[in-house]
């Protein structure tokens, strides 16, 4: 739910990176964290297991700057991808303004991608949200791996992108596609807000 | 029923006593209570524990030693409290006409049995 403060002219939006385990959600956030100037980011928080798998979520607050006179802040979250963290995925998804689905391009991961994508839609539906109303961007990560191991963007698109949402090939470890993905979801979320379809618009006082 | 109940009921049977409570000084939470009607045990416990704690710290700051007995007289009644070595404080809420001397004796007896 976007939070808009008219008095201080601030917008805060929540974006959730969703996808199967080890698809590169946390890597996306790490790359963003590494690239963004210090004055534009808060501390990145990771609730991870001893083996560095995301246990609950990663959290990265970003100060996007002024958009149409509004100071715009994004809060980026990742969900844990492993199947058994279903309950925590639902919790992190609550109140999301936009979702980035990070798919693993490896051919052997296609079933996990599809299962996770269905899981996303089921979790949104369970919260009474029409998945079609939430800005969604697909990212096909690990496109840097040898071609014989991965599916092409077209093949992944055929399998996952039945809604025709924006999609980007990416190599989150080294950066290609990360910026484009973030740009696209930011645009989707703010356009939706602009159209007045996001809930939770509030008046404000002094900040 | 906690083991404190008979002791608290004995206190509440005293003439003019409206409520007696055992309260954790640190948490301000009720451990057990015996209340007449019209008493909010949680509120009394939270505020009495805070008051007792302040009194204990004040006595210590003034190098007066431990607090023996705390009595607050208000327009429509009084609050008495005693505490011992543990975190527990016994609190009594009484009418203005209640016999404070007797309440004091009963509170010390109760404190002995508590420790």
């Amino acid at each position, binding site marked *: 739910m976007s939070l808009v403060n008219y008095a201080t002219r601030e917008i805060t939006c929540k974006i959730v990176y969703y996808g199967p385990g080890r698809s590169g959600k946390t890597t996306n956030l790490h790359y963003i964290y590494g690239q963004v100037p210090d004055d534009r980011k*808060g501390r990145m928080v990771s609730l991870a297991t001893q083996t560095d798998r995301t246990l609950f979520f990663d959290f990265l607050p970003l100060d996007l700057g002024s958009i149409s006179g509004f100071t715009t802040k994004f809060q980026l979250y990742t969900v844990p991808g492993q199947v058994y963290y279903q309950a925590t995925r639902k919790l992190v998804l609550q109140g999301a303004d936009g979702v980035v689905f990070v798919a693993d391009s490896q051919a052997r991961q296609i079933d996990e991608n599809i299962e996770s994508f269905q899981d996303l839609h089921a979790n949104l539906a369970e919260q009474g949200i029409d998945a079609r109303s939430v800005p969604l961007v697909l990212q096909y990560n690990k496109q840097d791996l040898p071609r014989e191991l991965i599916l092409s963007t077209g093949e992944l698109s055929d399998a996952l992108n039945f809604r025709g949402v924006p999609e980007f090939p990416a190599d989150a470890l080294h950066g290609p596609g990360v910026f484009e993905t973030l740009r696209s979801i930011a645009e989707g979320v703010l356009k939706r807000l602009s159209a007045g379809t996001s809930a939770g618009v509030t008046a404000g006082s002094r900040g | 029923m906690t083991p404190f109940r008979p002791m608290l009921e004995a206190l509440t049977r005293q003439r003019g006593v409206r409520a007696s409570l055992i309260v954790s000084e640190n948490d301000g*939470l009720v451990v057990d209570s015996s209340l007449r009607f019209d008493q909010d045990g949680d509120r009394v416990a939270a505020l009495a524990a805070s008051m007792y704690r302040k009194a204990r710290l004040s006595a210590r700051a003034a190098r007066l030693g431990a607090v023996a007995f705390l009595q607050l007289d208000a327009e429509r009644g009084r609050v008495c409290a005693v505490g011992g070595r543990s975190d527990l404080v016994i609190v009594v809420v009484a009418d203005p006409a209640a016999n404070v001397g007797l309440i004091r004796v009963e509170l010390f007896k109760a404190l002995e049995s508590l420790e």
Partner: protein
Amino acid sequence: MNIATVEPWVEAPLRRFVDDARARLALLLHPSGQVVAQAGFTREVDVMTACALAAASHATSGELGKRVDGHAFRSLHYTGPDRQLFLSPVNTARGAYICLTVFNGESSLGLVRMYFEELCHDLAAAAPPLPAAPRPTIAADFELDLNRNLAALFGREPAAT
């Protein structure tokens, strides 16, 4: 005391709560983790992160309660060597919020709980009804702004649009 709010009707009740309960800090947040208001010694914590974690903790205890007790657990209390936390929901006409209260030995759980009940009552009474429809907020030039800012974030030239 520092106080900052997104919603003006929250300010007076929250300020009074921090004063009365002798809390170090109180944060009011949306269940999604976004900050609505903050009062007290707000420089003691990274507020945005604290809210994200508080929302997660609240959601977790709620779900845990449903599994253990059939109903969501409402409140949480954590104790540390010097500080304690009290986390509890507040329901108003504007929706549900969560209040994170940080306190130390100057206060107690009993006092915080007692004044928290008053805070809930005050907020419920002060909450204005939800606005009929959200107003559009973004002007036509937002795409230019978006590109400029994203480029600044990543230290590269804005993409041509």
